[in-house]
C-alpha cells in the first residue's frame, strides 16, 4: 500500500500524430492496468498536424513514469511528459443551466454568480446558461451555490493544462514539424455512398 500514500494528480501531456485509433491505443494502456482516467482532452497542438492529449490520473510517480514510457513506445506518439499540478497552469470549463425566472426573482443569485466569475452564455425566457472556468474546486463550488436555486443542468469539460516550463521541447517539436510535415488523416469516405456501391 506504499503507492497509495504517494498518489497524487499527474498531468500527462502527449504529443502525437493525428491518427484514427490512437486514442484507443493510449486509453488501453491505462485500462489494462485498471487505472481510471480522471480527465482526458485531445486537441490540435500549437504545431500544425501534431495533436496534444492532456490526461489526468491519480497515481504514484513510479507508476506514472512507467505509463509514460509505455505511451511513448507507441509508434505514432512523438513525446510524453508528466507533471504535478504545481508544474502546470490548468483550467476546466463548466456550464450551468438555471431557470431565468429564479434569477429574475432572486437578486442574490446574480450577485453570487458575479462573485464566482460566471459569465452569461445564453439568455432565454425559460433558462439562462452561465459559464465559468477554473480549477475543480471553483467549478464545484458554484454547483453547491446554485443547487438550492434549482440547477437544471451542469457539465464540465476535461482539463486543459499548459506546462510552465515548456520552451525547450516546444521549439524542438516545431522544428520537427518544419522538417517533416505530418500526413493527413484518411477517413472512410465511402460510408455515405453505401447504396451507390455494388457489393456481394
Amino acid at each position: 500500500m506504499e503507492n497509495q500514500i504517494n498518489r497524487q494528480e499527474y498531468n500527462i501531456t502527449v504529443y502525437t500524430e493525428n491518427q484514427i485509433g490512437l486514442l484507443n491505443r493510449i486509453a488501453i494502456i491505462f485500462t489494462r492496468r485498471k487505472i481510471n482516467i480522471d480527465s482526458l482532452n485531445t486537441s490540435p497542438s500549437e504545431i500544425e498536424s501534431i495533436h496534444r492529449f492532456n490526461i489526468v490520473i491519480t497515481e504514484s510517480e513510479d507508476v506514472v513514469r512507467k505509463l509514460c514510457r509505455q505511451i511513448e513506445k507507441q509508434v505514432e506518439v512523438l513525446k510524453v511528459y508528466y507533471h504535478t499540478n504545481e508544474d502546470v497552469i490548468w483550467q476546466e470549463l463548466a456550464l450551468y443551466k438555471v431557470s431565468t425566472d429564479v434569477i429574475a426573482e432572486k437578486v442574490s443569485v446574480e450577485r453570487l454568480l458575479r462573485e464566482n466569475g460566471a459569465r452569461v452564455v445564453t439568455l432565454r425566457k425559460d433558462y439562462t446558461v452561465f459559464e465559468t472556468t477554473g480549477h475543480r474546486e471553483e467549478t464545484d463550488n458554484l454547483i453547491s451555490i446554485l443547487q438550492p436555486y434549482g440547477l437544471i443542468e451542469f457539465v464540465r469539460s476535461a482539463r486543459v493544462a499548459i506546462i510552465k516550463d515548456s520552451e525547450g521541447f516546444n521549439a524542438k517539436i516545431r522544428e520537427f514539424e518544419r522538417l517533416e510535415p505530418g500526413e493527413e488523416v484518411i477517413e472512410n469516405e465511402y460510408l455515405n455512398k453505401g447504396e451507390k456501391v455494388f457489393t456481394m
Partner: protein
Amino acid sequence: MEVAQETLTAPEQKAAIELTGSQALLDALIIEGVDTIFGYPGGAIMPIYDALYDYSDKLNHILVRHEQGGIHAGQGYARTSGKVGVVFATSGPGATNLVTGLADAQIDSTPLVCITGQVFAHLLGTDAFQETDVINITTPVTKWNYQVTDANEIPEAIAKAFYIARTGRPGPVLIDITKNAQIQKFEYKGYTPCDHIRSYRPKPIVRPQYIKEAAELINSAKKPFIIWGQGVILGSAEQEFKAFVEKSGIPAAWTILGAGAIPTGHPLNVGMLGMHGNYGPNVLTNECDVLIAIGMRFDDRVTGRLDKYAKQAKVVHLDIDPAEIDKNVKSTVPVWGDCKETLPMLTALVNHNDHTEWVKLFNEYTQKEYDAVIHTELNPTSPQMTMGEVIKQLNVLTNGDAVIVTDVGQHQMVACRYATLNKTRSNITSGGLGTMGFALPAAIGAKFGAQERDVIAIIGDGGFQMTLQELGTIMQTGVDVKIIILNNKFLGMVRQWQELFNSKRYSFVDIQSPDFVAVAAAYGIAGKMIDDRKDLPSALKQMMENKGSFLLEVMVTKENNVFPMVPQGCSVAEIRLK
C-alpha cells in the same frame, strides 16, 4: 493482367501503371523479400487470393488448416529465418483466430505482418457478414495496426508495416484491407520501402556515459553475473555477445527465449534461469554483486518474488526498449540501445578477467543439481521412460544442430533444460504467452524458414490436440517436420502444481488421447509409438532418417515432476530440488 505482371517488381517505377490494390500488395511483398505466406482464404480476402493466383511462382503460399496455425507458422518462420513472417486471413472469424498468435508474437517480440481482409468500406459498422472490428480487437496485441480503405494507401501502409515489424524491438503488425480497396484500380507509382517514421524511434540513442559507468561497475565486480534473453538473438548480436562474455570471463545464464545464443557447452554458459531453470543461476542471482541483464525483460517466471530478487546486486540493464528499463527491476546503470551496438562498446572497456573461483561455484551448484535431479532424470531406473532421457537420446542424434520447437508445459521445460543447442535460432517456443498448441504449426513455419536444418517438434499429449489439424498442412505441403509426442496421459504441468500445491486434487488434468500414430497415418504421415526404453534409440534413429515427416509417440512416466522449481511467490534462492 499480363502487362501489369511484366513491370511489377521493378524497384523504382517512373511511369505510373494501373494496378488493383491486391496486385500492389503482392508486389510490395515481393520487393520486401517475402518468399513464403501462411494463410487461409475467405470472402473478404478473395480479391487478394485472386491476384495471388498469378504470383504463385514468386510467392509460396502455404494453405494452413486454421488461422491460428497460420500465424504460429508465421512465428516459427520468423524465428528461424530472422525475416518477417507474413500471414493472410479473411475478415471476421479468420481475423479473430489470429488473436492468440498476435498476443504470442507481441509478448515474444516476433516480427510479423498479418494481412486481413475486411468488408467493403461503406459497410463498416453495419454488422455486415463476417464483419468484426479487427483493428480494435487487435490493438492491445499488435505493435502497430492500420485499416486501409483506399488502394492508394496500400504501398505506404505495407512499407510502414514491414519497417515497424522488424526494427527496434520487433513485433506483430496487422493491416486490415477493405474489400473495395483490394479491388480498386489505382495509379501505382512503384513501391518504396520505408526507412523512417518521424514519430517512431526504433533504437534509443546510445549514451557513452552509461557504457562507461557500466564498464566501471563490471570491472570493479567480484561476483558479476550475466543474464541474457532473446534480445541478443533478435539483434543478431551473438558474436558480439560471445566476445563480451569471453573477454570479461563472466558466467552467463539464459532465459528460455535466449537459449542457443551461445552454445550449450560453452564453458561460461552456466544454464537456464527461472522457475524450472538451473540451480546455480537461480541461487547465485541472489549472491552476485553486479547483475548484467542483456536483452531480457525480467519476466516473473525468471525473477520469482520480485522484492527478494537480486537485492544485493547492482544492476546493469541493456535493452533496446526504454519501457523495459526499470519496469520490473530497478537498474543501477541503464544501457539503452541495440546490444549489437552497445555490447562492442562495453567489451572494449571491460578488463580481461576469468573469475575462476566464482565460475567454480556455479559448477559446484551444477554438480549438486546433477546429483539430486539431473542424473535420475536422464538415467532413470524406473520401468517407464522419462522425458529427460528422450531429450538426451535425441541430442546424440542431432549433435545439437537441430531446431527444437516446443509447446508449453512439462515437456517444454525438460526440452529447454536438456536439449543441446549449438546454433542460434534453434530454440523455438512460446515463452511469454505460454500458448499450448504452438509447437506443431510453429515447427512447420520453422522448417520453411530454415529448410536446410532438421526441425523437431516436441509436444505434450495435451498441446498436440490443440492444433493437430495442421497435420493436414504437413500432408499437403510435404514439409519435413519430426514430431515427438511425450505422452504422460496428463496435463502434466497443471497436474504437478495440483500435486505440490493442491494436495493432489487432480482436477481435470486426466486427459485422454486418440491413437496419435493412427491419426498421423490418416494424414499419410509415418509414425510409431514406443513404451519400452530399449526401443528409444532405434525409434529416434528411424524418425530422423525417415524421408519426410514422422510422428514418434513416446509413452513416459505419468507422474513425474519437473525440478528444480521456484514455487510461485518464492524467491529464486528458495528454489527446490525436490
